[in-house]
C-alpha cells in the first residue's frame, strides 16, 4: 500500500474515517471555522438555511480585521451586526478591532494546532499550514452551511512536494523564497492541490517567516499548504494551546503528482511586478523603479521579524516616500514597542496603523492615488487590488520595502545592510 500525503491523513482525520485517498469526497468537520468582517453577510445566508443555532459555537472564530477601526458608518454597522450575532449565538471566539489579522490571531491564541483542520471564509486560510494544520479557504455560503451543519464536502486533493535545501543569505527571507517558488510554479501549478513542503531548508526559517510559504501558495492556486511541524513549533504552541494534539506527517512513500526542489543558498531578494504575484524578477532587475508609497504589514509579512527587518534597514535613516507600517496583531505591536522597533520606524518617518489588514485589499489606510506606485509586503498585486486600478503594486520582503522607502526607488537591501 502506497503511503499517504499530509492532505490524505488530515482530511481522513477531519472526516472521522480510517483512510482517504486523493479524489475521495468526504464530509469534513473542521476543528475551527474562521471568518472576519464578512461574518454579518454569512449570518444573513445562515438565516436563509432555516437553521436557528450554530452547531459548534466553540469552534467558531470571528476576527474583525478587514476594515478596522471602522472607516465609514456602513462598516461600523457591519461590525455592530457581527457583535450582536456573536452574542445571540454564544460564539466562543470574537476578536475585536485592533487584535489583529485572523490568520495571525488564531495561531497566537492556540486555536488551531498541528494535524487539525481549519476552514475559513478567506482565501489565505492556507496560512495555517505553517503549524502543520490543514487550512483551506471556502466561500461565505459554505461558511453559513458549516455554521448550520458543522460539515462541508471536501475533495481530497492531489499533492505536490516542494523540498527546500540550504540556508538563506543575509537580507533574504521566506518572502523571497515564496516569490521565487511562485515564479517557477506559475499561477495554476498548485490548483486544487495540497502543497507539502519538506527538506532541511525549513529549519533555518524563523517561526515568523514560515507562515509566508503556505500563505502565498494560495497565489499558485493551492487548496492548502503544509510545513512539517518541528520542536520550535511545539514550543511556540505550548503556552498557548488549550487542548492536546497529534501532529501528522506524510509517509516517506506518499504519492506526489509533482516534485520541486529549491536551493536557498544562492537566492537573491525577489520582487513581484504588477499585476500578478508570480510575475517575479530578482530585485537587481528593477532597481531604480520610483515608488510613492511603501507598505509593511498584512498576514503575509506583518510579524515581529518583519518589523525587525524594517527597523534594521531604517535605523538612523529618513524615508523619502510615504511608509505605512501595520503590525499583523496587537501582540506583534506590543513586542515591537517593547523592543524599540516602533521608535526606530516612527523616527524614520513611518506612519503606524492599527493592527489589521490595512490597505492590502484597498479598503482604507493607504489607498494610492491614480498613477502612484506602491511597494508592499502583501501577497497580491492584481489590478485595482489596493483600491485604484491605475496604481501599480510591487510585492517584496520587508527588507526590500524598507530599503526602497529610504530612496523612494526600488532598492537592493543588501546595499543598505553592507
Amino acid at each position, binding site marked *: 500500500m502506497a503511503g499517504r500525503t499530509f492532505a490524505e491523513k488530515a482530511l481522513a482525520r477531519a472526516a472521522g474515517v480510517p483512510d482517504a485517498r486523493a479524489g475521495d469526497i468526504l464530509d469534513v468537520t473542521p476543528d475551527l471555522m474562521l471568518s472576519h468582517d464578512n461574518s454579518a453577510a454569512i449570518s444573513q445566508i445562515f438565516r436563509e438555511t432555516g437553521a436557528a443555532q450554530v452547531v459548534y459555537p466553540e469552534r467558531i472564530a470571528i476576527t474583525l480585521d478587514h476594515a478596522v477601526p471602522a472607516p465609514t458608518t456602513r462598516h461600523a454597522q457591519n461590525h455592530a451586526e457581527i457583535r450582536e450575532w456573536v452574542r445571540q449565538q454564544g460564539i466562543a471566539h470574537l476578536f475585536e478591532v485592533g487584535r489583529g489579522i485572523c490568520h495571525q490571531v488564531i495561531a497566537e491564541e492556540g486555536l488551531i494546532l498541528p494535524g487539525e483542520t481549519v476552514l475559513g471564509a478567506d482565501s489565505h486560510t492556507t496560512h495555517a499550514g505553517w503549524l502543520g494544520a490543514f487550512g483551506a479557504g471556502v*466561500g461565505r455560503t459554505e461558511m453559513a452551511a458549516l455554521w448550520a451543519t458543522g460539515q462541508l464536502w471536501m475533495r481530497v486533493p492531489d499533492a505536490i512536494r516542494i523540498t527546500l535545501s540550504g540556508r538563506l543569505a543575509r537580507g533574504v527571507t521566506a518572502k523571497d523564497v515564496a516569490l521565487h517558488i511562485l515564479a517557477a510554479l506559475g499561477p495554476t501549478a498548485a490548483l486544487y492541490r495540497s502543497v507539502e513542503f519538506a527538506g532541511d531548508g525549513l529549519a533555518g526559517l524563523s517561526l515568523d517567516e514560515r507562515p509566508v510559504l503556505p500563505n502565498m501558495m494560495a497565489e499558485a492556486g493551492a487548496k492548502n499548504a503544509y510545513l512539517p511541524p518541528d520542536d520550535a513549533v511545539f514550543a511556540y504552541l505550548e503556552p498557548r494551546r488549550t487542548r492536546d494534539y497529534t501532529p501528522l506527517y506524510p509517509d516517506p512513500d506518499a504519492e506526489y503528482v509533482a516534485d520541486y526542489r529549491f536551493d536557498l543558498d544562492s537566492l537573491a531578494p525577489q520582487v513581484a511586478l504588477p499585476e500578478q504575484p508570480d510575475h517575479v524578477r530578482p530585485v537587481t532587475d528593477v532597481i531604480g523603479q520610483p515608488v510613492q508609497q511603501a507598505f509593511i504589514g498584512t498576514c503575509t509579512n506583518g510579524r515581529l521579524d518583519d518589523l525587525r527587518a524594517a527597523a534594521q534597514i531604517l535605523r538612523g535613516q529618513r524615508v523619502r516616500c510615504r511608509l505605512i507600517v501595520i503590525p499583523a496583531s496587537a501582540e506583534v505591536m506590543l513586542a515591537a514597542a517593547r523592543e524599540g522597533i516602533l521608535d526606530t520606524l516612527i523616527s524614520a518617518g513611518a506612519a503606524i496603523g492599527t493592527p489589521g489588514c490595512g490597505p492590502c485589499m484597498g479598503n482604507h489606510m493607504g489607498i494610492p492615488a491614480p498613477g502612484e506606485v506602491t511597494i508592499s509586503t502583501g501577497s497580491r498585486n492584481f489590478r485595482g487590488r489596493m483600491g485604484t486600478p491605475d496604481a501599480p503594486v510591487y510585492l517584496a520582503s520587508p527588507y526590500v520595502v524598507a530599503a526602497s522607502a529610504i530612496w523612494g526607488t526600488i532598492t537592493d537591501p543588501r546595499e543598505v545592510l553592507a
Partner: protein
Amino acid sequence: MKLEGKVWKYGDNIDTDVIIPARYLVTTDPQTLAAHCMEDIDQAFASQVQPGDIIVGGRNFGCGSSREHAPISIKGAGVSCIIAESFARIFFRNAINIGLPILESPEAARDAQKGDTLTVDLVAGTITNQRTGKTYQASPYPPFVLGIINAGGLVPYTRRELGIDITG
C-alpha cells in the same frame, strides 16, 4: 436546462479583484455589484452585457480573493454561464453554491471568440458554438456538486439536509 448567449471573451488568470474590486464590497446587492463587474479590465462589459450572455475565460478564472461577490456580480449582470479552461477552486465552489452554472472545457474556451453565440446543455454538459457548428463535452460535475446544483444551490441543499424542506 439549455442556455444560449453571446460570448464575452477574457484571458488567463482573471482574478476576483478585477471581477469586482474591493472598493465596491460594501454591499452584497447583485444589481449594485453588477454595475461595476469587470470595470477595471473591460469598461464596456457592465453597460453592454445582455441577459443570457456567457463569459468565456482562459486558465484559472476567478483566482485570488475568496469574495463571493465575484460570482454574485456576474450573475447579477445577467450572465447565464461561465466557461473556462480551468477555474480557481474557491471561485468554482462559490459559483456552484450561489447557483451560477460554470463549466470547464479547455477546447470550447480556446475556440470561442468575442461575440460568438454558444448553446449550452447543462444536463448533458455539452457546449455548441453556433459560428463553427462544433460541439464540445465539458468535464462532468462530481456527483456531490450535481446534488447541490439540482437543489438550486447550497442554501436550499442545506435546508434539505437539516430537514427543513421535507418536500424539497
